[in-house]
């Protein structure tokens, strides 16, 4: 199922339980994510996909259980873990009052990078010429691309992406898929949710974690 030639465990979830407003989304969920994995979390609406991603990213606290990064609880090694984590949620983290360039610049610097060329990175996501445009004036797809440009300049091992393909055209999706494969091959891992079918990442290299809608 996995393409992991180097089966180093990056992340492991340990008996995760998530309860929201007295409703159990999932419980006793355990899995490992190795270097080289591309993992898709799937399941119907309301099954807790986003909640699971946020728990793995350390944004939400699980009701019980823990997530370990290289064998250590992520709440105990938050700085190291955050150093190796790139998370893109439903909300893009792009401010409409700033230009595309300023947004990218801020997002990269706050993650600690200081050697990058925003013009070049924006060109890679087809935003050449939009550097000076206020993000509020960009289209939904361009807005999303501004956020995704961060992936072009990242040495984080763990990418957690919640619906990264939203509002992205077909060609853009293919480019992203290529990027994910490249990232996985270089020893990283990608954890994502999506409702779209992927064309390049075929089922034999994609690992799936399925969440079911629970009634109890």
């Amino acid at each position, binding site marked *: 199922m996995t393409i992991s030639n180097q089966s180093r465990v990056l992340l492991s979830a340990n008996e995760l339980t998530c309860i929201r407003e007295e409703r159990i989304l999932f419980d006793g969920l355990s899995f490992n994510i190795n270097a080289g994995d591309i993992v898709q979390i799937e399941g119907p609406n309301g099954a807790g996909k986003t909640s699971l991603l946020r728990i793995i990213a350390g944004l939400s606290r699980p009701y019980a259980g823990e997530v370990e990064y290289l064998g250590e609880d992520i709440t105990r090694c938050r700085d190291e873990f955050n150093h190796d984590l790139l998370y893109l949620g439903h909300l893009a983290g792009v*401010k409409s009052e700033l230009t595309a360039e300023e947004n990218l610049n801020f*997002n990269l610097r*706050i*993650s600690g*990078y*200081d050697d*990058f060329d925003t013009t070049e990175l924006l060109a890679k996501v087809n935003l050449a010429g939009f550097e000076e445009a206020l993000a509020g004036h960009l289209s939904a797809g361009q807005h999303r691309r501004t956020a995704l440009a961060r992936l072009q300049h990242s040495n984080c091992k763990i990418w957690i992406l919640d619906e990264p393909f939203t509002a992205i055209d077909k060609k853009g999706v293919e480019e992203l898929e290529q990027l994910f494969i490249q990232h996985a091959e270089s020893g990283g891992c990608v954890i994502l949710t999506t409702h779209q079918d992927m064309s390049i990442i075929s089922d034999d290299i994609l690992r799936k974690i399925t969440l079911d809608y629970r009634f109890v």
Partner: protein
Amino acid sequence: MKRGISYTAAFMTLLQRDLRIAVRHRGDIFNPLLFFILVVTLFPLGIGPEPQVLTRVAPGIIWVAALLASMLSLERLFKADYNDGTLEQMLLSPQPLSLLVLAKVLAHWILTGVPLILVAPLLAVLLHLDGNSYGALMATLALGTPILSLLGAIGVALTVGLRKGGVLLSLLILPLYIPVLIFATSAIDAAGLNLAYDGQLAILAAMLVGSLILAPFAIGASLRVSTN
């Protein structure tokens, strides 16, 4: 790819970003200031124009108005960042959260506290503040408004995820503001009577140091709850 950005650089990045956004959104700076001026000018209309009465109540009026103006402006401290997802990115940054939070609070203070300090002497003239009190007024505002920003930010961080945060916010933070109000106004009163007021200033300074050290942690913890 190098990732050796220093704490100072991270701090300045966030500070600059907030200042830049505020400059593009000028209303954020002027609305609380306008509110401050309006509240202060309403008081003489309410209590009457006798200079002696106004002199007596001026410190209280200016400080209460400053409290309310600070609260009004605080509401938006984390709101925009929460709504567009940049707050999540801050929480996931490898930089210490309390540092980033401090940068945001400092930006807020520069944008709302400093204009308030600058305009306060003018309003003091309108309220016939005692001539000896101007120094104390400026000193207490300079020491006190950052405390308001720091303590208020805790309340804002707790309510940022809620839809109806406004009234709740005032209930949460006004009790915390009471000591600042008491010591600041009494310092101004003492100055008006030609008494020493360095004791009150020292207490305000102590509160400032205390909240500088402790508030960022409380704000950070609250933000983690709010973005959960």
